[in-house]
């Protein structure tokens, strides 16, 4: 029986598990969270307000399919190593409470793997963004959904993309006063992205209307062509400077105004989590403006027996992740792309990818944002590296730049700042890098004693 490993328990991973089980495989699914669902269905049985969940029944169906099937699920699993081998893949994880010491080692050898590691928020640097009270939009969402708490009493939501809408709604439902949702893209870009061929958006349009209704009910203003360009405060957030942005997201001089608030939620898009795919040798496409795993119609990567699904192949949302996951899991288990059971997912995938193109066209990050970052702005939060320091070393290879400035060398390993650092290097005339900061041989934090345990034991198969 084929053994399919699945990295990630969000929409893509859960759909992959269901697909692999349907094709007759045995499944091992690993996720770092303490519950299945990923970021999209992040939840806690007692703490989560059900009004904050979207498509919850779909989650329950997928979870139940997993529970019924021949599947081992490891939650709380930090997968720190992934290797492609002659026989398939080998994953090493430690399982237990997050960042505990001496967690249980779990070693998975499988015939194939589906990389469904998802994405995290991409918050662009803003002067003052290291002040307590500034979070990503995803943090505001996660804390509202998972823990039932609001990141502030008066919150400004700023960035780009439809994700800002449910974040504002969640904040309002957990009791925060949302001062406004600031969408960086101008109405012309939004129209160019969203208005053509409205029939493709059936379903999605309803979702937007629902959010728009939520915003209206909570009297939350939604502004386009606008963004937070500076965060004010001494020891914590006391307010923000908001400016009108042009079509390139360049702040328009003279439009700045101060808004009082105690929290800022920033989300300018999403960054795929590529380290596992890279460790498995998968090729990427794109450049510092967005790199994704290369997949074919069968969701096959360039490494044999390694499949990828969801945000790692392109930022396209949960519907795309579900469709790609279903295909990836089914094919990883040895199923055929022409199988009638895949007709639904293949159609859904086509529709979802069209949605992704609209998303990029309407909300994709524009280069003018670097104009709101001044020389002294910290870009790498971990190591407190300023824009000036990075730009001054733009002329050396990226690796040498990192070592000279320490940008991207801190605890987050460039996950937070990587794209911004690369954009600043590129703007300062630096040579483009093929992989950037995404290659991280240690896929997740692990304690040295847990790594040392490898040398002492012959890992189980």
């Amino acid at each position, binding site marked *: 029986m084929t053994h399919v490993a699945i990295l990630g328990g969000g929409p893509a991973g859960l759909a992959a598990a269901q697909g692999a089980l349907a094709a007759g495989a045995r499944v091992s699914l690993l996720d770092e969270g303490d519950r299945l669902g990923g970021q999209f269905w992040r939840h806690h049985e007692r703490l989560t307000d059900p009004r904050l969940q979207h498509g919850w029944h779909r989650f329950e169906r997928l979870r139940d399919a997993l529970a019924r099937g021949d599947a081992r699920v490891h939650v709380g699993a930090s997968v720190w190593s992934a290797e492609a081998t002659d026989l398939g893949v080998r994953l090493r994880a430690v399982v237990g409470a997050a960042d505990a010491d001496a967690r249980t080692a779990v070693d998975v050898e499988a015939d194939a793997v589906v990389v469904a590691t998802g994405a995290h928020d991409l918050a662009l640097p803003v002067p003052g963004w290291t002040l307590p009270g500034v979070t990503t939009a995803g943090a505001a969402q996660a804390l509202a959904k998972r823990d039932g708490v609001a990141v502030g009493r008066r919150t400004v939501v700023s960035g780009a993309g439809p994700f800002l809408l449910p974040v504002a709604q969640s904040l309002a439902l957990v009791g925060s006063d949302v001062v406004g949702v600031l969408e960086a893209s101008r109405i012309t870009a939004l129209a160019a992205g969203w208005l053509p061929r409205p029939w493709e958006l059936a379903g999605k349009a309803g979702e937007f209307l629902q959010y728009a209704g939520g915003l209206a009910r909570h009297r939350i203003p939604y502004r386009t062509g606008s963004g937070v360009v500076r965060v004010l405060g001494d020891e914590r957030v006391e307010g923000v400077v908001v400016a009108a942005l042009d079509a390139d997201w360049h702040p328009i001089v003279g439009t700045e105004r101060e808004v009082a608030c105690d929290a800022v939620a920033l989300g300018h898009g999403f960054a795929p989590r590529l380290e596992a795919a890279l460790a498995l040798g998968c090729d990427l496409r794109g450049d510092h403006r967005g790199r994704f795993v290369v997949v074919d119609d069968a969701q096959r990567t360039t490494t044999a027996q390694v499949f990828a699904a969801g945000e790692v192949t392109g930022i396209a949302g949960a519907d795309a992740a579900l469709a790609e996951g279903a295909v990836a899991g089914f094919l990883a288990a040895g199923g055929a792309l022409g199988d009638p059971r895949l007709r639904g997912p293949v159609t859904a995938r086509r529709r979802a990818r069209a949605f992704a193109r609209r998303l990029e066209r309407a909300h994709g990050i524009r280069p003018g944002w670097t104009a709101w970052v001044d020389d002294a702005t910290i870009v790498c939060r971990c190591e407190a590296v300023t824009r000036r320091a990075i730009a001054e070393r733009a002329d050396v290879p990226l690796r*040498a730049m990192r070592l*000279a400035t320490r940008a991207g060398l801190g605890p987050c390993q460039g996950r937070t700042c990587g794209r911004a650092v690369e954009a600043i290097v590129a703007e300062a005339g630096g040579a483009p890098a093929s992989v950037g900061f995404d290659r991280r041989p240690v896929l997740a934090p692990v304690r*040295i*004693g847990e790594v040392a345990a490898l040398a002492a034991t012959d890992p189980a198969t």
Partner: protein
Amino acid sequence: MRVVVIGAGIIGAACALALVERGAEVVVVDRLGVAGETSSRCEGNLLVSDKAPGPEAALAIASNAMWRTLAGRLDADRRDGQPATEFEAKGGIVVAFPGGEAALERFAAAQRATGIRAETLDAAALASAEPHLSPEVAHAVRYPDDAQVQPSNATQALLAAAMRHGARLVVAEVTGPIGGPGRIAGVRTATGAIPADVVVNCAGPWSAEVASRLGARLDIRPRRGVILVTTPMPQRVFHKVYDSDYVGAVGSGDAALQTSIVVESTPGGTVLIGSSRERVGFDDRPGVAPAGAIAAKAVRLFPFLERTILLRSYFGFRPYAPDHLPVIGPDPEIAGLVHATGHEGAGIGLAPATAELVAHAVLDAPTDLDPTPFLPTRDGLRETA
């Protein structure tokens, strides 16, 4: 005199500075740019402690002394945006576990005879020098002259200094020689030809490939080394601390995975834990075995590391010659071609002395160092690895 230096790693950068300061016109050619490979993928060790008496020890002692003035000069002269070398004469402590005391003490005694300072520490002195070290440690020798630089930054500082003196950097891959058989008159690159009177091959692990493109033969091979980096923490390691099995590994011809442990803190607050050695060609998939072996030995040395978070690991390729000595001097068959490579894990430490020997070979600059043991004509290079 016009000199092309191939390679902008530590050896190429040091050679460029030495040559340009002695009046040569210097063009550095590198396919990636400064410190793009090995010199950004190593530990920055300036060691005398690991050197058994012999020609490399003599070179290391001289080079160690040269680094002290060089680092000070580089740091004093640096411009805005240029990194500091992070030179730190922190000293090294080599420790032995029970059973290894006599071998370590014998090694240290032999080193003392060649002029290396090596002080045996008693238990109280060791506990005060490294309070977090394992109580299992049975013997310790302190080497006050062992020092450290941030190798990528030191390379960048060296090249920046050379460029302030007029050296040029061309980022391009060398594709072949200019000139007929037996005599080189410059190099061809992917972006054009660069004529020169002398070409210096400082391509590290790739210097055999470069030599071959230039029509020469040179047996230099890559050896892969993995290094672990912890998350930043309050300082708990105060010297470079080695397990005394480090002593045996450098010269070993064994292809299998070997580890010899060096633990030290960095100015960034992280702890560096090196290192493994494997002869696997340019294989860029180290897997987890080296990390597991390094981690196990590191935890034995410093038990607190067991609960420390591993932040990242990296690996680099170290260039080695069949006899494990650096190769410095004129090519025996091609006039105008000089090699400076094969420093294995010691290139950062040996760079200033290597540069002085290259200046001697290229410009006939005076030196007190003996070039003979490192010449490419030596017998040891004709052995099979």
